[in-house]
């Protein structure tokens, strides 16, 4: 067994952008608008419809008009049906920044990072970042939404033959490797699901609000052993957007600003050979320390962590890789109840996450982080919110992004 952490020995250097922010605090970036459309089994609307709706809502939330935007960053979901035409749908003129990016679940963090760099460098002043997706069709199983659409050929055909056409099965392979290496159990994965449902019960935005028990998790049908149904996220139609501007401009807007203190990405590029850390270590092990260094903080300072949770396993692995517990002890950490309401020093996935609230890729943790940093979490508001961590995960643990947010300006 290789040492999964041996490849992470380089200490990450803080991105140069942190120096820029400190040199001119007026230009430091802040999230000032959040727009969440109707969400879930909402039929008859396309992804571009949801995206435009989300941007309009985010701009209105900030106390701005769409004409105030001079930047737009777009991330499309699995159907790849969003594009630069969105600027036309929103009647945006004379944009100084317009781009489409795709890092799957890491995209929301990446968009906020690029928007932050843009506003702090003067490339643009007011940038909307949007994700929308409409994979669900009325009368069709949710399984079809993410199923492969082309007949298999070539080496991809072997993946289909092996039973790995679905993302579920590929994550099941990752989870199993963690289980056989560290002794992680299905019950420990279940503890993640139970904890997050505990939060969702308190979240009016959540789609699943009936409490569940560990027995419910164990009895839920097997999707891809070792993953049960309750280990898997929802699939939702909808859209979410945020607006990023400078701290100086943020002062005059409608919502309390949420300052962007740090960000980083990590893309492990697992080799298909014995030294691969696939299933054992995610990109969070690198992007977490790098983002914290940029923010001048340590993991002990994190009050709220909104972790990407396409599966219970993804959240459990991220808990370890960020350093909330030791490597291999994520299962025991979850089992201790640390992830549920009233759990411990750090509040985790306070909205219920993608498992129980809504599945909008990286916008799920980001939107809840903005709500928590504003102190608008109502029944589920964490007692402390000085530093909020947001993780994004894409592919099958292939892509990772980290954001650190705070209601406080300055460093």
């Amino acid at each position: 067994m290789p040492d999964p952490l041996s490849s992470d020995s380089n200490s990450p250097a803080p991105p140069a952008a942190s120096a820029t922010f400190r040199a001119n605090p007026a230009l430091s970036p802040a999230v000032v608008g959040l727009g969440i459309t109707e969400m879930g089994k909402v039929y008859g609307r396309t992804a571009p419809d949801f995206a435009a709706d989300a941007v309009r809502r985010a701009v209105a939330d900030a106390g701005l008009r769409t004409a105030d935007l001079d930047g737009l960053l777009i991330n499309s979901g699995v159907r790849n049906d969003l594009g630069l035409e969105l600027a036309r749908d929103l009647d945006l003129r004379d944009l100084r920044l317009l781009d489409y990016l795709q890092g799957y679940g890491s995209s929301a963090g990446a968009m906020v990072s690029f928007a932050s760099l843009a506003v702090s460098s003067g490339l643009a002043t007011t940038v909307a970042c949007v994700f929308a997706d409409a994979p669900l069709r009325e009368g069709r199983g949710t399984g079809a939404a993410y199923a492969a659409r082309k007949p298999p050929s070539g080496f991809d055909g072997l993946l289909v033959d092996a039973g790995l056409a679905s993302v579920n099965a590929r994550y099941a392979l990752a989870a199993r490797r963690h289980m056989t290496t560290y002794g992680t159990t299905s019950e420990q994965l279940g503890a993640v699901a139970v904890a997050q449902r505990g939060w969702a019960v308190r979240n009016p935005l959540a789609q699943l609000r009936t409490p569940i028990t560990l027995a419910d998790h164990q009895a839920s049908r097997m999707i891809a052993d070792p993953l049960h149904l309750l280990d898997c996220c929802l699939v939702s139609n909808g859209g979410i957007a945020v607006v990023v501007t400078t701290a100086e401009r943020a002062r005059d807007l409608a919502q309390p600003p949420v300052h962007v203190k740090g960000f980083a990405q990590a893309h492990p590029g697992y080799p298909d050979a014995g030294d691969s850390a696939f299933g054992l270590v995610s990109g969070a092990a690198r992007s977490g320390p790098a983002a914290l260094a940029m923010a001048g903080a340590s993991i002990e300072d994190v009050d709220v962590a909104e972790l990407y949770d396409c599966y219970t396993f993804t959240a459990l692995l991220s808990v370890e890789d960020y350093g909330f517990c030791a490597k291999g002890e994520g299962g025991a950490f979850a089992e201790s109840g640390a992830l549920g309401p009233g759990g411990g020093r750090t509040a985790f996935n306070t909205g219920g996450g993608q498992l129980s609230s809504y599945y909008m890729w990286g916008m799920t943790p980001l939107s809840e982080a903005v709500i928590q940093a504003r102190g608008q979490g109502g029944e589920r508001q964490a007692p402390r919110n000085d530093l909020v961590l947001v993780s994004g995960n894409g592919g099958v643990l292939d892509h990772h992004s980290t954001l650190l947010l705070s209601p406080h300006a300055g460093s």
Partner: protein
Amino acid sequence: MPIARDAASAEFFDGTARGELLLRRCTGCGRISAPQARQCPDCAATEFTPAPASGAATLVSWAVPHDREGRPLTVAALVELAEGPWLRLRLTGVAEPAADLSAGLPLTVSFEAVADGETVPVVSVAREGRHETVDRIPAPQEGPTP
């Protein structure tokens, strides 16, 4: 489900039809890579010669996708070949999925002819020089997604 070849996999499926699992040996440094490798991970060379695998492998991880009625569809295995590369292949001959499996379990590569498609490599649990004939586990269908 029959698999069609494409340009990148033609040589590989010529190999499986002969009962050979062809890996790629780097012409620069000799490192052996997976059949679908495009660049040598050691020296970045892009020229390879085919290198038949011995067929010995070990189990790294496995998953058992189920259909909506809760029936196991197949056992998907992540395997490490004796030559080093990892492959994702169907694990055959396991009646009760997951029951007797463990990381590091020795496996053997064999080949299954498929009507109207290419011959596919599969793995089974190694049994000291003897191959058992087993009923095929039902072919995988569209994977369920939450």
